[in-house]
């Protein structure tokens, strides 16, 4: 078979760009995991909640975009705080499996609430991304994908910078590194836990708004979270770098599988990559190995 290099390039470009969204959502996930060791299976549903909040502000209340987006992100932050306070905090000190299963319940609750408030119908978000087609050489790049990737990278960079230079970021990383020591140097660790959930929910909301503006929103868009899970596992649950690299990688794998094998192979391909990587590196590409003790 003749290799159509142009096609390969075009598909790869698009899928890597699309992977940027996985990276952003993966970052939201890692944020919580690093600080609180909670595997948030409801990450997809938190994305969904963010996009519905945006839908409410922008489409139902007709707020201008510059107001609707921050409002949705802030409201999501509040949601994150509420979740942390009511469901995660009570399980402090319980085995991590408990919190993991609580997030399964959380996912269901969020979907139920969305359907109650906004119904299960599919909806479209107001278009706010530029629609001018982007071309790179001969390759077309869907403007939404391009701008989505741009926004994702801006946010990823911003988050990384903030957590490098802001004192709260240092506190968060310190807590992630050594919880007992964080207490001992005077960091209010429970507040850091809250903070991590708030930031994570806000990042999830940003990704949700972009994802929703690309493909519309519905109560089943939490499925996106499954791919995010694959991303963070492949990258290593506690690694920010891992989430970024794996986000792009999984995006690429998915795109190539879809292009050369067919749509039904997309999820399959990512899961096979996941299983393969875990067999070789049980803690993901960049994850920290947990040391076992007797």
């Amino acid at each position, binding site marked *: 078979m003749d290799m159509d290099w142009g096609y390969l390039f075009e598909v790869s470009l698009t899928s890597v760009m699309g992977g940027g969204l996985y990276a952003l959502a993966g970052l939201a996930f890692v944020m919580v995991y690093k600080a609180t060791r909670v595997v948030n299976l409801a990450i997809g549903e938190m994305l969904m909640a963010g996009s519905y909040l945006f839908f409410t502000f922008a489409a139902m209340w007709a707020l201008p975009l510059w107001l609707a987006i921050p409002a949705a992100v802030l409201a999501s932050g509040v949601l994150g705080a509420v979740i942390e306070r009511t469901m995660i905090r009570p399980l402090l000190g319980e085995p*991590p499996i408990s919190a993991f299963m609580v997030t*399964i*319940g959380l996912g269901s*609750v969020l979907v139920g609430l969305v359907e109650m408030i906004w119904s299960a119908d599919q909806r479209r978000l107001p278009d706010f991304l530029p629609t001018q087609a982007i071309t790179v050489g001969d390759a077309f790049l869907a403007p939404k994908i391009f701008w989505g990737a741009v926004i994702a990278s801006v946010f990823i960079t911003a988050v990384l910078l903030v957590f490098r230079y802001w004192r709260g970021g240092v506190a968060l990383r310190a807590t992630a590194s050594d919880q007992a020591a964080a207490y001992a140097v005077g960091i209010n660790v429970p507040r850091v836990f809250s903070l991590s959930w708030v930031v994570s929910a806000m990042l999830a909301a940003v990704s949700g708004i972009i994802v929703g503006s690309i493909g519309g929103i519905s109560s089943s868009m939490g499925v996106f979270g499954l791919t995010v899970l694959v991303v963070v596992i492949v990258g290593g649950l506690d690694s920010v770098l891992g989430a970024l690299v794996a986000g792009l990688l999984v995006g690429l794998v998915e795109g190539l599988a879809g292009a050369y094998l067919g749509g039904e192979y997309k999820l399959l391909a990512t899961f096979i990559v996941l299983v393969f990587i875990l*067999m070789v590196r*049980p803690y993901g590409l960049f994850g920290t190995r947990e040391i076992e003790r007797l």
Partner: protein
Amino acid sequence: MRIGTLKESYVADAALFDSRTQHVWLAIAAAALLLFPFMANDYWLYMACLVAINIASSAGLNILTGYTGLVSLGQAAFMGLGAYTVAILQLRWGTPLALNLLAAGVVAMLGGLIVGVPSLRVKGLYLAIVTIAATFIAHFLFANFDFTGGTSGLSMRPARVFGTDLDTSFRLYWLIVPVTVLMLLGAANLFRTRIGRAFIAIRDRDISAEVLGIALLKYKLLSFGLSSFYAGVAGGLFAYFFRVITPESFPLSMSIFFLAAIIVGGMGSTLGSILGAAFMTMVPELLKLVFDLLPGGADLTVFLAPVRLVIFGALIIVFLVFEPLGLAEMWRRTRRFFHLWPFKN
């Protein structure tokens, strides 16, 4: 924790049901199970069969997740393996029911072993995600092979036992409930022996267990195998029960359902599997009843599905936060209370 029972041998002390009262209750329960089909209408029989199938599968998941501590979100996939095995055997070769069910268990078990292989290297939550992967890979296989009937799945003839077609809930009841009862008995027995103890040891601290002589990989695989065997048989019953199976019959949400059932019922408890699966299966029906009783119920119907989702999730959360030992523990507490009430003994 019973008061005033005297045991005369270790065997008696190790029996599952040891006191006279227990035997009386047992007889009543057996009678109830036997009489139920003659009293209930088709709807309740249908629900009873569904509950029994879900109990069988939950009991399997409880072995793996509740007792051995390996969280699995792949139970639906293993049920699917069992269901497809039964359907294919029946449609292609017309093999008898008992053989089909056994094969369903074995095929699912093999699937479970494959998923279990990474369990020595891949730990805890990483492993849980691998089981999600299994669900999707199984779905892909079901949907893309000719002999599985692709996306439209397979339609079966009713099971045939001694010349009778098991084509009504009433008749299926006499297949499904006894099989479930036997499986529960097996599960209860398991935890009276070294195998069950080894599972619990792995759950509580797997590294120390190894030093005590428990080969981790072997027992983790055994647990995966047993759990998926249960799922496979339950899936086989499912196939005979619905007689139409499609790839979409076994979604991830079904695996989540079983996980929720054992959380709500009680992890690491056979009673928990029973209570949890029964309760979670009945919740939607109970909710409908409640909605019907509410004033203006008809207008609220649009909220039924979301409310169901919210309640489903909330049950998981509430039980984990407030009653991590589940309904089984609540039941034990009640029993203790009544056992001493109104007098001691």
